[in-house]
């Protein structure tokens, strides 16, 4: 029923110590911040099994898309 590696990008709405509320498309869930530091409201994090496991980088996301759009040749690709 539940995907074991499933992790969803969510936006942090509020932070209270190690507890936070994350939201995606209007759905909110309580999330623990034990595994990531310096999380602030507005940050986008990957949430897995109720824990934020990484802060996501918008720049890196955009870079991947640009790479494909340019159909460019990056090193090793």
């Amino acid at each position, binding site marked *: 029923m539940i*995907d*074991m590696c499933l992790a969803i*990008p969510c936006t942090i709405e509020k932070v209270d110590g190690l507890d936070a509320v994350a939201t995606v498309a209007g759905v909110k869930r309580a999330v623990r911040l*034990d595994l990531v530091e310096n999380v602030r409201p507005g940050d986008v994090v990957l949430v897995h099994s109720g824990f934020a496991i990484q802060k996501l980088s918008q720049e890196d996301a955009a870079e*991947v898309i640009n790479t494909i759009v340019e159909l460019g040749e990056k090193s*090793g690709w």
Partner: protein
Amino acid sequence: MVASEFGDPKLVADLAAKIASLGVANAQLMEVCGTHTVSLAKYGIKALLPEGVRIVSGPGCPVCVTSDSDLSQAFQVAKTEGVTLATFGDMMRVPVDGISLLKLKARGCDVRTVYSPFDVFALPSDKEVVLFGVGFETTSPGVAAVLREAQRRKVTNLSIISCFKLIPPALRALLEGSDVRIDGLILPGHVSTIIGSSAYDFLVKEFNVPCVIAGFEPIDLMLSVYSLLKMIKRKKPMLVNTYTRSVRAEGNPDAVRIVREYFEPVDSEWRGLGTIPKSGLALRDEHSGLDARLRFDLRPTTVPEPAGCMCPEVLRGVALPTDCPLFSKECTPENPVGPCMVSSEGACAAYHNYG
């Protein structure tokens, strides 16, 4: 978040065309992540790839590779008076000799599914709570955090059966064995988020196999196939990280640190692969008070595989689900024989449900 662009059909079609134009006639790529198994199947990626390019599943489904011996230990705990066994969803239905946690629950044992390991704190505290800890490197940090929190709250009724496993040693075992053909590896995006891309350097250095760390959106998957085929064609194996928005070279050091604080690598038995050195996690001696195996005196047992079940071969990637004589006949999602059909991330379930 640019999520919608990662599913843009036009970009996907562009990548499909680029993949076809590489003209690689025959390649077998392996993924080792149950979520990749499901994503590839759900998006119907197979239909977009050239005929000679195959993606097989390896031992990436944590439910599937958990041994019957470990599951039998969970049964034993579930049957113990005064104990609540907490488990992640899919483990409920895996059968061993006709028994499953779901059946034990129906018989009155206190078995509960939890979505997050942190949910154990919401369970009634008048009983012993045991968490059946199944998963890879994505899941173990959260459980370590729960153990730290339990100690902070001075909770004494919590323990865990640690069945966590590590992906890099399993990859080593697969590549050292000679029975499966792997031309390229699609590496798990969320395990990699924790352990970092540098954890995979040995794959190129020692085995010369092209590797790509991939996310789970359609673009991520197509890009990873494209990158692997390009490396195969040029005969230039490298490690490429296409999931840079989440995976750093060093991974998530906080998560790695907390796991090291509570666990240490030990030899571990994987269904289908046998015992792999230092491929599992056990609680460190100083935390043995949290070890359910000690608290409940749980011993390993040997359970034979059900007759005809080819889960071991499917998990190693040497057989496809359709090669198993039981597939879709005696073994179906409603009457599963082996875990590859039970788990929503198992290769057999994916083949049965998605084609």
